């Protein structure tokens, strides 16, 4: 029991030690560009945690990463690398966008769920190709998903810039340029913000913060995934296949079936990643729709050790780093490049530390047994 306690304590301390280590390392960098590390960190923390709009922005930043971390982690759990989360969320976002601007006059309680459902269908569709190729033809999913990411980018470009571009924008003859975007969505497809709910608790967020119910959905999804993985037969099968496909086959589980279901489920979650931005911040899909949530999801999943709750924490850390970056850039004049390096150092330290700890814990557990 004593050892158990020690392991939990270690699990809690490691990320903190890792972050402290990264902070020290980044300080060298900050000194090198001629700024005071203490001032920079102070600004970062005061700015990120001391203002209501910043906290709202952090949670908003974290929302897509919760979804993408969960999508990637689920594929990891089943023993596959879904690098294609990036492409799946782009396709999912477009499906939702299509529902958003095509249907008008639907009541919100039908329109919004329909858009969300469409996004999941889009993600599943884009995940279907690589997993079909994997199970039936033995094509490695890393290759096929990476390639499908490129196809997704270009396909979306074609759909937005050619087929569905909003041609009713007012732009004068020969001056300026119309935005390359779909028409605006109907109001009924937009996700309400969290402001009303929070004001119930005496928390007032400024109206330019776009924190919305997708954050709550993300948290619920994390709980749901935890339940699925550790408290249902299907979750057991996923974990069994993920840790040893041959042994589970001998035990009567068909790995191919589990690969199929697990991967498609991962794709369905991936389809939701972009919605928090799409259905509250933008209200249309444009060529500049934020990229890289899928790839960042891989880092989030690794940092969270593929644990749904760890993923939520890792996503919050990412959100904090991004908001803090805006603060130190604006108020301390630290260039963007420096901030990107700092973020890299922090992520790397946490991942390395988690790995070292993981091995140590395994050794401890073996001794215990």
């Amino acid at each position, binding site marked *: 029991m004593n050892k158990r306690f020690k392991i939990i304590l270690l699990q809690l301390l490691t990320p903190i030690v890792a972050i402290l280590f990264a902070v020290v390392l980044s300080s060298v960098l900050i000194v090198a560009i001629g700024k005071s590390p203490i001032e920079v960190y102070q600004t970062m923390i005061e700015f990120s945690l001391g*203002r*209501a709009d910043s906290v709202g922005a952090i949670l908003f930043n974290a929302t897509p990463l919760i979804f993408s971390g969960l999508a990637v982690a689920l594929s990891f759990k089943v023993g596959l690398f879904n690098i294609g989360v990036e492409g799946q969320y782009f396709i999912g976002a477009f499906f939702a966008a299509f529902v958003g601007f095509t249907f008008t006059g639907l009541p919100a309680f039908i329109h919004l769920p329909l858009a969300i459902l469409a996004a999941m269908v889009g993600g599943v569709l884009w995940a279907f190709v690589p997993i079909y190729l994997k199970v039936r033809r033995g094509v490695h999913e890393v290759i096929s998903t990476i390639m499908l990411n490129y196809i997704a*980018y270009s396909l979306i470009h074609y759909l937005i810039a050619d087929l569905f571009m909003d041609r009713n924008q007012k732009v004068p003859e020969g001056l*300026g340029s119309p935005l390359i975007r779909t028409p605006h969505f109907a109001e009924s497809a937009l996700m309400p913000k969290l402001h009303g709910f929070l004001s119930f608790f005496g928390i007032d967020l400024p109206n330019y913060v776009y924190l919305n119910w997708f954050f709550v959905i993300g948290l619920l999804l994390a709980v749901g995934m935890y339940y699925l993985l550790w408290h249902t037969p299907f979750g057991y099968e996923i974990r069994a296949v993920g840790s040893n496909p041959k042994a589970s086959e001998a035990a009567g589980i068909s790995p191919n079936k589990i690969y199929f279901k697990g991967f498609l489920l991962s794709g369905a979650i991936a389809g939701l990643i972009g919605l928090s931005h799409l259905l509250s911040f933008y209200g249309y899909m444009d060529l500049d729709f934020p990229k890289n949530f899928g790839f960042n999801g891989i880092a989030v999943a690794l940092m969270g050790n593929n644990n749904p709750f760890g993923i939520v*924490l890792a996503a919050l850390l990412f959100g904090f780093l991004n908001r803090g970056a805006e*603060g130190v850039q*604006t108020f301390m004049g630290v260039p963007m490049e420096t901030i990107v390096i700092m973020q890299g150092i922090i992520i790397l330290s946490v991942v390395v530390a988690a790995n070292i700890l993981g091995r140590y814990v395994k050794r401890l557990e073996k001794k215990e047994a």
Partner: protein
Amino acid sequence: MRKFKSLLVAFVLVVFAASTLLAGCAKKTEEPAKQEETKKIKVGLVFDVGGRGDKSFNDAAYAGLERAQKEFGDKIEVKYLEPSAGGENREQLLRLLAQDKYDLIFGVGFMFTDSIAKVAKDFPETKFALIDGYVPDLKEDSNISCLLFKEHEGSFLVGAAAALKSKTGKIGFVGGMKIPLIEKFEAGYIAGAKYINPNIQVLSDYIGTTGEAFKDPVKGKELTLKQIKNGADVIYHASGASGVGVIEAAASQKKFAIGVDSDQSLTAPEAQRPYILTSMLKRVDTAVFETIKSMVDNNFKGGYKEFGLKEDGVGYAENEFNKDLIADIKPKLEEIKTKIINGEIKVPTSKKELQ
């Protein structure tokens, strides 16, 4: 079960972390009052993705900022920011500058259109300037000024120059991202070339379909080599930082390249300079400078500002390196320029209009 307990602990921690974060929301922190005595005009500028160092669009905006700083010295205070790689925090950066009481805030690039429109509504006292973007329904007393360029007019001129210099009767165009803005360059270029030689053949290629297309010199180089192989001997690019590859390829094959946005003869390596025929100038620097100047002179006007040939907002570059190169065609170019300015030549603004 033990595993369950440790996970439960983890979940409680997540909830705890989230709630402390939210508790932070409840407190409203007051900004400490600033004790600034001397009233400086604070100018903020948010670059587009890529930021400084693209030797093209962003750098031109920076040049304008730098010139203003030099000229107005202690009357202004400047700051520039760069959005994250995906560009989704453009609005947040603009808002931070506005909250920090900046008087004039630039958004560099048409991607800022919606962000500026939103932020400007919340900060009616702050002035905003938007380069290349169009916000509808502005008036002179609006707090947004759209700085718009007639790139097609400048491209018409360099298209004419290309046709005048071409011996093979084939010229090339390499665009960055396939969007209407870049197609405007292409349309003007083709029209200019056809004005000189109706039978000229223009080979057009685009580097890509994402923002990456503006920073892919390798692909730029390959497309240029392909066009040269197919007979093109003058190649114009509108592809931002990818153009470095276009110029390199043209120089290596001893053919002409035409630069874009800034005068690229000045930034190219020595060996490539003899092969840069000219550059289509888009005076983003002038637009930035003039807007800051209007702030300093206290006569900032909202609405739309056009920068065409007439306003010297676009044009072709002449410098010590290409002076002799274009000496023979310069009179013709000047003649065309005058004709465009007084309306004798109507330059098409899109590929559709061209046909």
